[in-house]
């Protein structure tokens, strides 16, 4: 069974159709990327999947369960966690506490556990602490554990957001342009971490403009343009697809590169 399945998902804003009858599946293994020119409806698609917006039509199935129109926190509870195009950290919390918030779904302690601290709550807290530190280690952030998150350099903020999302223990993680603003080196490190997340059994669905990252990291690519899915396949297949090349302004380039994408957005 596929982990995520979109069936004819559509979203209209007034007269504008931002996402138009999109269907595809995300298998349980590996990394799937959604690419397309700016304004093609990728972020809207993510908002629909993550429950930030309800679709106008169509169904979204997560592990066979219908999650269409569920509120965002319920979608996360089901095991589908997203990151944001613009990093949204809890800036006043420490780096470690950011990841601990990520562990929210792993715990159960409520107000009374907070006040009375029974043995079960203490055990849970110790487990959360251990897991959070482990994830910081994984993301290379251990040295900053007690720093306020706002003090991290930008590249590390991205890593922290990724660690925090992973902490939620998702079975599908949605990454909205995770490489935006990263330099080549950071981007390569990110690619390795994404592969590791996928290898650990979490399927990854990402939107990305950085084509190097997509081609190196993704197992499958879905291409959207004007809200429609225009192609789907392995990176190599997609790269050779005439419809894809046409969508990227018909530049004739074998691989759509970020500069062309930018122009497409502004043109």
């Amino acid at each position, binding site marked *: 069974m596929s982990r995520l399945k979109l069936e004819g998902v559509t979203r209209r804003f007034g007269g504008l159709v931002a996402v138009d009858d999109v269907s595809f599946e995300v298998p349980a293994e590996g990394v799937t990327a959604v690419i397309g020119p700016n304004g093609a409806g990728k972020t809207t698609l993510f908002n629909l999947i993550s429950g930030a917006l309800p679709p106008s039509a169509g169904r979204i199935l997560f592990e066979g369960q219908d999650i269409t129109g569920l509120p965002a926190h319920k979608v996360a509870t089901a095991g589908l966690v997203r990151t944001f195009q613009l990093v949204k950290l809890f800036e006043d919390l420490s780096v470690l506490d950011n990841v601990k918030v990520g562990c929210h779904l792993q715990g159960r302690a409520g107000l009374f556990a907070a*006040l009375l601290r029974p043995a079960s709550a203490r055990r849970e807290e110790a487990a959360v602490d251990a897991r959070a530190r482990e994830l910081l280690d994984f993301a290379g952030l251990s040295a900053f554990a007690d720093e306020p998150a706002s003090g991290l350099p930008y590249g590390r903020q991205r890593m922290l957001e990724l660690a925090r999302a992973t902490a939620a223990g998702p079975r599908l993680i949605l990454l909205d342009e995770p490489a935006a603003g990263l330099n080549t080196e950071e981007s390569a490190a990110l690619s390795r971490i994404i592969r590791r997340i996928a290898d650990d059994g979490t399927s990854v669905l990402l939107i990305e403009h950085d084509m190097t990252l997509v081609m190196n990291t993704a197992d499958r690519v879905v291409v959207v343009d004007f809200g429609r899915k225009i192609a789907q396949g392995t990176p190599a297949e997609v790269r050779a697809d005439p419809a894809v090349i046409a969508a990227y302004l018909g530049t004739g380039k074998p691989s759509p590169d970020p500069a062309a994408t930018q122009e497409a957005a502004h043109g």
Partner: protein
Amino acid sequence: MTISPSITSPERRPFRLVGLLPWLFAAVVVGYAMVVGGYAATVVSFALIYAVFVTGLNLFMGFAAQVSFGQNAFAAIGGYGSAVLTATYGWSPLPAMVFGIAAAVLAAAIVGFPALRLKGHYLAMGTLAIGLITYEITVEWQSVTQGYLGISGIPPFGIGSWEVTSDRGQLVMLSLVVAACAFAAARIRRSRFGRALSAVAGSEEAATALGIDVSRYKLMAFLLSAGFAALAGSLFVHVVGYVSPEVFGLHMVIVTFTMLYVGGIGTVAGPLVGALIVSLLPETFRAFKDYQDLAYGAALILLLIYAPRGLASLFAPRGRS
């Protein structure tokens, strides 16, 4: 968000001693009042009651970075609940207090549900309106509240035949209550529940994406805050033995915000320190009673402009917000 300061991680040894200073200050003030008794004890008692209220306010506004200008409504419900049930219906204080708090939390649930969906100035005005409506009701519902005259003859707090009547006895009782409140706030802060509140304060979108039910946590913080407010209102009427609408008026909103900002919004010790400082300072020029609210208002403006994270932030090393 600028109104929720960072959590100091407890692992940092150098700040441990500094962290004790506010508690030391509070202990000295309360100890002094205990020794001197009389008027000083009364002033400090009021400060401690305010500390309970502000601790609750801080849970909602500091920890979760939400806005309410109407928590005085819940203090009024707690206070009048206690006053009416004891003075008019002859209940004993403890069940009256419990009833008052329950009524306030229930009221908070009823108004909180629609109110917390509001944002910005709508939320500010909506909550302000809740406080003002409650005030008007305490004035106008004369058959129960006796209007501006107020209710007198409220018995002091006690359980069974044991009553807290002396100044010092009240101080001890209030100190214990405040300590319990601060302890609760500290525990909440360092828990899954408290982290979820901080997450709501930091970014509602990100919190939601991590599976946190934002509106539920906002409501919980609001109810908690209302509970603390009602407890403070009830304590007030039992300590003073009298209640009138003015006690829970707009004055209370301004004074408690000043306390919150003086002590440092979002910190555990801030509400207590703020309540003590703001209560004690005007006593030094008590002869000019008309100037008190003037001073509170002016102090609040200055704090908001120059020390939005509390007086303590003025002395904190730079870079560590």
